């Protein structure tokens, strides 16, 4: 079973969400997701300032095997994107919860976070998909 940090929140569509000290939410895809997709070759990032709804498609991650949508875990405005991914999409494979982060959202609805999965629930979901 791949790494599922306990302090993060998760979605059923394999994104992770982390509340930063200023209240914004950093988003990436899980170690499990990047393992399924394989080597990343391109990440289509959203424009800064774009206003997203929870579960809205906003990023395309493209690997040698497939192109997949990434969905926003929360509603809000995109306030930062990981520009490093433009030249080094493999950061998602190497460090999905750290240097491989995708974007930061300023949430417009605080309660969105509480609707997300805990690490334990996500680990169970990801584990069930392995079988």
């Amino acid at each position, binding site marked *: 079973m791949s790494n599922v940090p306990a302090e993060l929140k998760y979605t059923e569509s394999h994104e992770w969400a982390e509340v930063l000290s200023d209240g914004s939410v950093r988003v990436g895809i899980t170690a499990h997701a990047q393992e399924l997709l394989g080597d990343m070759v391109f990440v289509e990032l959203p424009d800064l300032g774009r206003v997203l709804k929870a579960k809205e498609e906003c990023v395309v991650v493209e690997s040698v095997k*497939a192109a997949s949508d990434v969905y926003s875990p929360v509603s809000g405005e995109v306030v930062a994107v990981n520009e490093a991914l433009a030249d080094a999409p493999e950061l998602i494979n190497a460090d999905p919860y750290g240097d491989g982060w995708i974007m930061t959202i300023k949430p417009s609805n605080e309660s969105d976070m509480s609707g997300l999965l805990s690490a334990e629930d996500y680990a169970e979901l990801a584990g069930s998909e392995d079988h």
Partner: protein
Amino acid sequence: MPYIPHTQRDVDEMLEVIGVSNIEELFDEIPSELRVKNLDLIPEAVTEMAIFRLMSERAALDEGLACFIGAGAYEHHIPAPVWDIATRGEFYSAYTPYQAEASQGTLQLLYEFQTMMANLTGMDVSNASLYDGASAVAESVLMAIRSNRKVKIKRILMPTTVNPAYRETVRAIVTNQGIVIDELSFDPSVGAIDVDGLPTDIGEFAALIIPQPNFFGQLEDVDHLTDWAHKQNAMVVGVVNPTSLALLKSPREWGEQGADIVCGDGQPLGIPLSSGGPYFGFLCAKQPLVRQMPGRIVGKTVDLDGKPGFSLTLQAREQHIRRSKATSNICTNQGLMVTAATIHMSLLGFEGLERVAASSHANTRALLAEIDGVDGVESAFSTPYFHEVVVKFSQPLADVLDAMTERGILAGYDLGQVYPQLENHLLVCATETKTNADLADYVANLKAVLREL
């Protein structure tokens, strides 16, 4: 390429292997209401003998005529080796082979083609070709709309000096995607866009299309237009004649930043006129736009043993990886035409292409000098031109053209057909294929026709 017939027995055996009772069943996936039952406009099939006869008769109608019509497709001399090599069994296919990497020769050829087109246009990357010039413009429009991150509005500016057939195709392809095409008119006294009269309150647009030379053969003020569009955060799509690029500055050098996307029809590079096709389109762009490019790109790489080789890079991405997220429904290239064009360019070299361009310009210039001033005929525009010009007639042009055709000369294209404001205006082109005697013949016949009418 072998001709492989199917007997009924072959078909039955294949159906049995895949467990289907008849061919119709293979199309079950398609809802019946979406299927076209009767193709009323398609005539009944005829025999090989009958179609050969029909096509021979039609081809004969073109024989013996001297062609002075350009208007988007141009007669150029094609060295004999071009089609001799292109039609060898190893190359002779309309498509890139399935299992493309097994055909390293084809891939290498496409790689060379891309290099040549990138050099000609001054762009960083070229794809492996598209269907024709019109579809290349449409794909460029879609690409510009996708790539422009500063302007989100789905609107483009299309000068009416762009080939009318291209404009019609672009409209047909992009309109259903919610893209608005607004026209930019030209100054009828100069035959090009009046850059001093550019609208100041035109609103946001994602891209400006710039034809060079334009449909009338005239040169647009590409520097001014490029800077004007870029100042408004719009992208610039150049629509160019590849032959002209041997003389004119490359679109990379237009204005301060150069065009962003360059496309056009590759027909002048070794493809015969053949009543309108097949031709091929090309599409080149600056490096940051490569991920938004439709079609295919052939890349050079090394195999496990470190030996150089070629691979189809973009096709796998579009067809097998991105699928419904692909940038375009076009995942192909115009293989055979590009093969001919690549051989053509390699035989001519840059110097040869430059000589073709220069003598085409010189012939058109010489023809214009002779006919401008013939009673009832005058040059319509004073703008610099490449190898096509517009002359205005004081009498009905259709009659003149008919009489010229009877004398064995296709004298040009009647612009009044598509531009009401250019009634009795003739677009005429003399490429390097025309000798001094041909030009003299044109002028003598034109004078005779005008006397008779």
